[in-house]
């Protein structure tokens, strides 16, 4: 039987309960790594593996095992080096492929100055557009915005190409980005006029 306690909360020796004592007057609480129980109440070894990755307890959440950290480092650097090799291989393939074949787009007299014509070049899934400006120049670019591949809309009157998705703007004369998020110029499609017909002769991918 313990001695009866003074129920008044501000009695001597119990100042802490009135909010005036420092925490050092209490005995230290031992650190517990894991106190929360999983809902099914089974032991930790019987739990699915993801429970170890998403612990509810604060100490377990902050704990990083040396093995896990090493695994993260190794796998991440492996992924980076594989990615670099993949880029190199792709570049090699692109260099070997050569220029795409000629393709007739339209007759020159069908494309009046100030009009826009959409075509596909070099493949069926590479949408491009041809603009004939008021002064007769022929300009052709890939239609995929260099930001997130939305279809861009040329505006020959204002001399810009606009991307409606994120308000990206390209210069019509050069295809270079002048406003908004696009990072690179649009790929330029090289066009030629032979015997009154317009031909696409190649694609110039540009980084700046």
């Amino acid at each position, binding site marked *: 039987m313990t001695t009866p306690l003074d129920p008044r909360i501000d009695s001597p020796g119990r100042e*802490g309960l009135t909010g005036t004592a420092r925490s050092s007057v209490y005995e230290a*609480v031992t650190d517990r790594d894991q106190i929360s129980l999983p*809902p099914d109440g089974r032991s930790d070894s019987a739990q699915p593996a993801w429970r170890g990755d998403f612990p509810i307890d604060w100490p377990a959440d902050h704990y990083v095992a040396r093995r896990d950290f090493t695994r993260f480092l190794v796998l991440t650097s492996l992924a980076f080096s594989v990615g670099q090799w993949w880029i190199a291989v792709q570049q090699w393939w692109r260099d070997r492929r050569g220029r795409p074949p000629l393709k007739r787009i339209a007759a020159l007299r069908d494309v009046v100055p100030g009009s826009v014509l959409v075509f596909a070049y070099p493949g069926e899934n590479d949408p491009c557009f041809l603009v004939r400006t008021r002064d007769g120049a022929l300009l052709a670019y890939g239609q995929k915005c260099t930001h997130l591949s939305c279809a861009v809309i040329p505006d020959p009157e204002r001399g810009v190409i606009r991307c409606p998705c994120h308000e990206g703007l390209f210069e019509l004369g050069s295809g270079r980005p002048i406003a908004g998020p696009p990072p690179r110029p649009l790929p330029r499609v090289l066009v030629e006029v032979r015997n009154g017909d317009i031909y696409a002769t190649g694609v110039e991918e540009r980084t700046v």
Partner: protein
Amino acid sequence: MKPDHLQFFIDPSRCIGCQSCVQACTECDTHRGDSMIHVEYVNRSLSTQTVPVVCMHCDQPTCAEVCPADAIKRTADGVVQTARKPRCIACGNCVMACPFGVPELKLERQIMMKCDMCYDRTSVGKKPMCATVCPSQALFYGTREQIEQLRPRSIPTNRFQFGKQTITTGVSVMVPRDGPRPEVLDVTAAMDTEPATRARSGASRIPGLEVLADPFAEIEV
């Protein structure tokens, strides 16, 4: 770290609905303007009885179990902390899941905030703010021996039944010492049982007082 021997006790029968705890909580600098405690009416149409609602700090926190962003954590002293700011995505899963209805979504700030038992105060040995201001001590923070001496007619319990889910909490609720004392408090079953009220039981317990008509009864026209 919160001292182990100091615990939180809620005595709903002592709550007078004065909202002092809400005001005190609102003035705290860690979440100024928002109260992490709320005072609820048990059954507004039948009674003025209110009950303060603070986080119960469960042993198996359902809010943390359902959190897809891994934002709700429990410290080693058993306090379930409010959402970690960098992780919380304000999805509201915890708001739906908590059987006690504690977490609140702050949509304009895109974060969930809930009672963390005034961790800035209790971790240095002070009382939670609501427990210091409660005039009727419906909210009590102290040792178990103290509450047993102060409330000889009730006993703290911390096991609750919500449907098929049994919850053991860090915060205790005072229940009458005499009368039936089940292993767990079955909350969902208690919601279905009709309380023995003066108005509905058909006979007034106070002599000379007429039985009040049910104000929400349908009227035949």
